[in-house]
């Protein structure tokens, strides 16, 4: 759901950029305080993986493809929505500047949608679901789905304000396609979390490990 420059007037892009910059500043502060020597390689590896997965378009039928976002994954594993803002911002800068995937003036909106909304929805819905289900898979899966679906619907509204999509059709199409893409997002998110839990459980956010130690099932 990378918005290209052509889909948005410059002045609207500027508004999203200003909002995005506030979150980028907070994400930089998170990185400064949280990134220990132990965590830097994990963050860098996750960022490289998010870039590769985001650029990999998977077919979702109806003549449409979709790719992973990874906002929920990063926020859950690193234990903060700002981790998603930090990583997604850097990935989106490289994708936009080097590969024209997402525009320059629209980058603020893309950072808000995928990094900020994706990260916050993914992180808080995961911990909400954990309280109810006490199961990592049943919590991370739906959280990842929501972290794909909600940014897509927000994007449809932004496209309506930009005068690019009609509101109703935009919401229906963006919602339908990303409901399907979200299923892939959910499956991969759960798989990667289990992979890290198996090989390097010490790298997963402490809060998740404590929940697991309390008898939460995988």
């Amino acid at each position, binding site marked *: 759901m990378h918005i290209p420059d052509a889909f948005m*007037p410059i002045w609207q892009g500027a508004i999203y950029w200003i909002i995005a910059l506030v979150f980028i500043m907070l994400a930089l502060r998170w990185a400064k305080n949280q990134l220990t*020597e132990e965590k*830097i*390689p994990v963050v860098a590896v996750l960022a490289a993986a998010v870039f590769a997965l985001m650029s990999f378009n998977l077919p979702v039928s109806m003549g449409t493809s979709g790719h992973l976002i990874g906002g929920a994954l990063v926020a859950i594993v690193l234990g903060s929505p700002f981790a998603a803002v930090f*990583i997604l911002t*850097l990935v989106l800068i490289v994708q936009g500047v080097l590969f*024209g995937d997402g525009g320059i003036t629209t980058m603020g909106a893309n950072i808000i949608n995928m990094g900020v909304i994706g990260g916050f929805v993914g992180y808080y819905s995961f911990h909400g679901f954990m309280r109810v289900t006490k199961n990592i898979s049943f919590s991370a899966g739906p959280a990842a789905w929501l972290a794909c679906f909600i940014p897509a619907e927000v994007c449809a509204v932004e496209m309506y304000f930009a005068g690019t999509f009609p509101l109703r059709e935009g919401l229906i*199409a963006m919602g339908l396609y990303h409901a399907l893409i979200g299923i892939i997002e959910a499956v991969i998110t759960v798989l990667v979390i289990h992979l890290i839990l198996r090989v390097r459980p010490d790298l997963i956010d402490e809060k998740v490990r404590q929940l697991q130690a309390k008898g939460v099932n995988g």
Partner: protein
Amino acid sequence: MDQKNLKFLVIGVLLALVVAIVAVFLASPNPDGLDSTALIASGQKTLTAPATGENISVEAPGHFTYASPMPDYSLGGKWGPMGGIIAMVTGTILVFAIVIGLAWLLKKRKMSKKQIS
């Protein structure tokens, strides 16, 4: 960095590179969710059927244009899949390097601040 972290780092980056290279060959050529919706908005696609045209014609008034050096993760037709591999590997390693570099810079700034106070 200890042995365990180095191992995670090397295997992690290699996995990311494998995904990046496989993507060049297996990625779907269909438009993504946003582009599909744009094609619907311009009447070139219905909700559930594939698009009939490829050129997205929706445009916002007063928008910005920018030409990226490697559009669509490729180096253009004459390079073929090799161009795609170069683009994806460059992107993956660049993201990795930027994150390492920025994290290191932030940490260094924090350390020097601590020394002053």
